[in-house]
């Protein structure tokens, strides 16, 4: 189909023009495929299977990433850990984004005491360092994967409140929103159809960035022993377990750390790419 040269180009076109966006998308895609393999159990070895005879073997053709001190396959465990990290952080960010965006938009739109209440509450949460607050919540909730997700969600909800509220404050004063009121639109309709679509860009970018922070927080919690519990695999936990034997078995520490780095870098680059694609002022052409 021929493109109408006068028609504006879609956001996807601009995304592809951003180098960091493309690189990030490739890295992220790789991690997602790897996690899907883990979901379906398409792994060379059982990530929990211990084999003392082949403990602390370096990378070889049978154990691609080597084995840890219990003889478990580091490759399978890394993939399974990646899956767990992504599950927890995607759940956490979904919850945070859902409630954060709703609260943020309502807070910006309604103003008055509701706004004051929400903003003060999120300031309170902001005042704590993320990992400390998550630690405190996990230690009261428990440490199933969903508790971890919930703890991370609580920590990141205020960011979404802020990101959604700011643009709403601007957009609700726009003439076209005033016109909807003049024409007798109800508030729910104004919010859903006329305000939300005009504030999505920063929220989408924030989702990508929050995912990377959530992965770091989840790894941090697991590293400290409050996230995923042994013998299950998680990237943070693997780093913790491999730390004492790092001198003898660098691979057990290196691969999970590398995966954390790759997925965090990938998500940040995707965030950059999205920001470039969604912000008309940053478009190069």
């Amino acid at each position: 189909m021929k493109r109408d040269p006068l028609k504006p180009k879609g956001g996807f076109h601009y995304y592809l023009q951003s180098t960091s966006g493309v690189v990030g998308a490739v890295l992220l895609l790789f991690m997602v495929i790897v996690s899907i393999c883990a979901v379906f159990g398409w792994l060379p070895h059982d990530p929990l299977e211990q084999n003392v005879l082949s403990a602390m073997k370096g990378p070889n053709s049978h154990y691609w990433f080597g084995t840890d001190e219990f003889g478990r396959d580091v490759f399978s465990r890394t993939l399974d850990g990646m899956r767990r990290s992504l599950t927890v952080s995607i759940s956490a960010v979904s919850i945070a984004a859902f409630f954060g965006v709703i609260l943020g938009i309502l807070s910006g739109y309604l103003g008055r005491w509701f706004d004051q209440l929400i903003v003060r509450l999120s300031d309170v949460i902001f005042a704590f360092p993320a990992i400390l607050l998550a630690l405190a919540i996990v230690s009261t909730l428990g440490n199933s994967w969903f508790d971890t997700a919930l703890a991370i969600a609580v920590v990141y909800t205020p960011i979404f409140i802020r990101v959604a509220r700011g643009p709403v404050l601007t957009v609700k004063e726009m003439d076209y929103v005033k016109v909807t009121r003049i024409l007798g639109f109800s508030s729910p309709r104004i919010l859903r159809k006329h305000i939300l679509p005009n504030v999505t860009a920063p929220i989408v970018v924030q989702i990508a960035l929050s995912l990377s922070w959530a992965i770091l927080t989840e790894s941090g919690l697991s590293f400290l022993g409050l996230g995923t519990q042994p013998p299950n695999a998680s990237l943070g936990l693997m780093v913790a377990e491999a730390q004492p034997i790092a001198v003898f078995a660098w691979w057990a520490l290196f691969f999970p750390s590398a995966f954390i780095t790759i997925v965090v870098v990938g998500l940040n680059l995707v965030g950059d790419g999205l920001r470039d694609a969604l912000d008309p002022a940053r478009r190069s052409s």
Partner: protein
Amino acid sequence: MTQPLLSVTELGISTVQDPRTLVNRVSFEIMAGEAVGVVGESGSGKTLTALSILGLLPRGVAVANGSINFEGNDLTNTSLENMQKIRGSEISMVYQDPMTALNPVMKLGRQLLEVIEAHEKLDASSVARVEVALRDVGIPQVERAMESYPHEFSGGMRQRVMIAMALLLSPKLLVADEPTTALDVTIQQQILALVSEERRKRGMSMLWITHDLGVVANLVDRLIVMYAGNIVEAGTVEEIFNNPQHPYTHGLLSSLPSRSDKSRKRLTSIPGVPQKPWLVGNTCAFAPRCFKASEICTSASPKLVGTLEKSVSCFHPMGGN
């Protein structure tokens, strides 16, 4: 005499905290099918009066007294649901600045459908209704326009779309708050002609707010002149233009350039600056700038007296020609 469509009685608007009067004892009526113009300087309260009819006064400003009667409903004292039903379908408004008054991320067709959807169920005929509405206001290639975004249109075209939106549900009263100030003079004329014609076709009433006397002269039946939150003079266009009674109206008209006047005189202006409405108190608001002011003008406030054709609020009206 027939019942007026809208009657505003002794309307007072003031700030909520630290009450300051912004509009004071404004009364006027609009008959079915009649077009009324409100002229006044910035801050004379004309926009606030219009917004109060729609119940959309800005935060911190409220109707302090008086009533606005629309077809038997007091609009100053009705539920939000009721008000939302009236807005857009019974009383509609054309906004000042067409450049920013359309949602930038929504296709035009969808935006007009939204207006229908806000008030009734969408059905098979809705799209056709939108198409007719757009065609009526002179949008070319309607099918294509429905699929376009606002930024693809010029200001004049967008104002046409705004008018189509306002007229979509056949309101009985159209409020227009200086809808042509943001447009070129030639486009202004087109929009004025369009609105006039639509009004005549539909037998719709109209309240046209402007600071431009030239704009309203050919457009409305009656004029209301506001000054510092008060109506100083009201009457038919002919009466006001040919026989202004209030010194302010007189001053306004003599500051207009005239093509027939070849004397190359400087245009006259009214000395001084407008009074703040809340400082008027129990005086004539125009007294400090009025060449006819006497003692009574600063010790009592004049009342608007006269008929629908002609009424004035002045102790020393200009008299004959």
